[in-house]
C-alpha cells in the first residue's frame, strides 16, 4: 500500500502544485523520486511529529496542500492535539498519512501497533477518515483526497498487501465498494482486513452461506444507506477491522445501526482490549485476536446464523 500511495501522490503532485509532503524521518528511499521531482515540496522535518503537524497547518492556511507522513501511532497519537487544534479546529487542508495500520509492524511491538487511531481521529469534527484495503483502494483514496478540501486521515497498511480488486477502482469519499453479493449476511470491512474478509466469505460460501462483502474505505463519513440496505436485506452484519473493537469502525457501524433503530444482529471483529506483550508478525497477532479468516468464518458460522 505504501508504494501505491507514493505513486498516486506523485501523480497528484504533478497535477496540483499546491501539494507538499512532510515526513517525520520515515520512508527511507521511498520518496526519493518525489523529492527529486519536487525538491521544494518535500520536507523531512526530523523525528518531531507534533511540530510537523503544526507546520503543515501553517502551510495549509497559506494555500498549500500538505500530506504529513509517519508510522500510525506517531502520525496520530503522538501529535493528536496538533491534529485537533491546528488542523481540525482550523479546518486546515491537511492530510495525515499513517503507515502501518493495525499489526502491520507486528514484530516491532505495541509502540508500533496501530489499534486506536480510527477511534481518536473519527471523533474530530470535520475529519475525514479513509482506510483503504488494498493497493487499488489506496490509489483511489489518494485521488479522492487530492480533490478533497479539509482535514483528512489516510490509514495505510505497510508493504506487500494482496491486491484484492482485480483492476482500478474509484470511489468518492463516503462511498463503499461491493466485492461479493449475498443475502445470508454481510461482512463490512475496512482497511487491511479486506483480504481476510473476502477469504472468510469464501469459507462461509463453502459451508453454504452466501455472504455479502462490502469494503468501506471511508470510515467517516460513513456510508449509511449501504449499511441500512445490508441490515434490511441480509439480517446480520459483521464488521472487520485491524483496530481495537472499541471506538473504531465497528463502533461507528454500531452507532449508525442504533441511530437507525434497526433490529439487526451485529458482531464486531477487531483487536481485543489488551496490549500484545508477545512478539509476532502480523499473521501471529491476527490469530491471537481472532482475526484470521478461518476464525472469522467459524465464529460467524456457529454464532450468528
Amino acid at each position: 500500500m505504501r508504494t501505491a500511495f507514493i505513486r498516486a501522490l506523485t501523480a497528484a503532485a504533478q497535477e496540483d502544485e499546491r501539494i507538499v509532503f512532510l515526513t517525520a524521518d520515515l520512508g527511507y528511499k521511498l520518496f526519493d523520486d518525489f523529492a527529486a521531482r519536487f525538491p521544494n515540496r518535500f520536507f523531512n522535518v526530523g523525528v518531531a511529529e507534533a511540530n510537523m503537524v503544526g507546520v503543515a497547518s501553517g502551510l495549509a492556511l497559506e494555500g498549500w496542500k500538505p500530506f504529513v507522513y509517519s508510522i500510525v501511532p506517531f502520525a496520530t497519537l503522538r501529535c493528536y492535539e496538533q491534529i485537533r487544534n491546528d488542523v481540525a479546529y482550523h479546518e486546515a487542508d491537511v492530510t495525515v498519512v499513517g503507515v502501518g495500520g493495525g499489526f502491520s509492524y507486528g514484530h516491532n511491538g505495541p509502540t508500533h501497533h496501530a489499534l486506536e487511531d480510527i477511534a481518536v481521529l473519527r471523533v474530530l469534527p470535520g475529519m475525514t477518515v479513509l482506510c483503504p484495503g488494498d493497493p487499488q483502494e489506496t490509489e483511489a483514496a489518494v485521488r479522492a483526497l487530492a480533490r478533497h478540501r479539509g482535514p483528512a486521515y489516510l490509514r495505510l497498511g505497510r508493504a506487500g498487501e494482496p491486491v484484492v480488486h482485480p483492476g482500478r477502482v474509484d470511489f468518492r469519499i463516503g462511498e463503499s465498494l461491493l466485492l461479493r453479493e449475498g443475502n445470508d449476511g454481510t461482512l463490512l470491512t475496512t482497511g487491511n482486513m479486506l483480504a481476510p474478509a473476502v477469504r472468510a466469505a469464501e469459507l462461509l460460501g463453502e459451508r453454504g452461506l452466501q455472504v455479502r462483502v462490502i469494503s468501506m474505505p471511508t470510515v467517516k463519513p460513513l456510508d449509511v444507506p449501504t449499511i441500512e440496505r445490508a441490515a434490511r436485506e441480509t439480517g446480520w452484519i459483521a464488521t472487520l477491522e485491524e483496530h481495537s473493537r472499541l471506538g473504531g469502525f465497528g463502533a461507528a457501524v454500531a452507532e449508525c445501526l442504533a441511530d437507525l433503530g434497526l433490529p439487526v444482529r451485529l458482531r464486531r471483529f477487531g483487536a481485543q482490549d489488551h496490549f500484545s506483550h508477545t512478539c509476532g508478525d502480523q499473521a501471529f497477532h491476527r490469530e491471537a485476536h481472532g482475526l484470521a479468516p478461518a476464525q472469522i468464518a467459524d465464529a460467524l458460522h456457529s454464532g450468528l446464523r
Partner: protein
Amino acid sequence: MTALSSDGLDGLLQRSREVRASVVRMAHRAKSPHVGSALSSVDLLVALYFRVMDIDPARKMLQNPDRFVLSKGHGCMAYYATLAARGFFGPELLETYSRNGSVLAEHPSPVGIPGCEIGTGSLGHGLSIAAGAALARKLRRQPGRQFVLLSDGECNEGSVWEAAMFAAGRGLDNLVVLVDYNKLQAMGRSDEVTGLPPLAKKWSSFSFGTVEIDGHSMPEIVRALEAAPFEKGRPSAIVAHTVKGKGVSFMENDLEWHYRPPSDADLARALAEIGG
C-alpha cells in the same frame, strides 16, 4: 571507585566484543533492522552494566541503587545482549529475538524481559520516565543514579527538551543522560535533517552538567560515567560521539544498516572482524 585497571579495561573490551557478536547474530537470525543503531551503543551499555551501575540480577529491580532506561528502543539488540551477558537471562533467549511468541520484540516490552522495566519504541519518552524515577529517588532520599540512553535523532522530539527543563528545574543530579550521537538518523545525517548541532551546547544551555566523549573509548566512557554528576544540583548529559555500525567495518557510518539485515556472508565477515 577504583581506577580502571588494564585488566579491567581488557575485560570490558572483551564484553563489548561478545555483545557485538551477539547483536550481529540476532540481526542475522531474525533478519532484523537497526543493527547499526545497536552497534553504536554497545560500549556505553557494557560500561554501564559491567562497570558503573550498581545493579544485580539477583536483586529485585527496585532494590537496585542504579537503574537504566533504553529510550532509543530500536537499539534493543545491544540492550538484550548486554542483559543476557550480565546474567539477567540466559543466552538462549536471545535466539528467540523477534520470533513469533518471544518476549524479545524489536522494541523492548515492559513485561516479560528480566532486567527491563520500561517499554520504549516511540522516541522521546525515556527521558521523562527517567526523570520521574530520579525524582522518586529524591523524594525517598534514596541513593543511586538513574541512567537513560537516547539517540541523536531522538533529540528532534520536543518532549526530550520538556524533560530536560523539568530535570534541570528540579535539580535532579541523580539523573545521567547518555546521547548516542552516531550522526545518522532514519533518513539522513542527523546534523543536516534538523538544526541539531550544537548538541552538547543545547544540553549545557538547558543547565545540564555536560561532557562530550568518544563513545567508543572505554576509559573515556568509564571516566565520564563515574564522575557524574559533574555539578552538584544539576542533571548530567554525556554526549557520546559514536559511529553507527561500530565494530564492523562495512556497517560503519552507513545508513543502509539502519535497515538491512546481515546475510550469511555478512555475518561471517562481521564475526571475523569483531573477534571475541
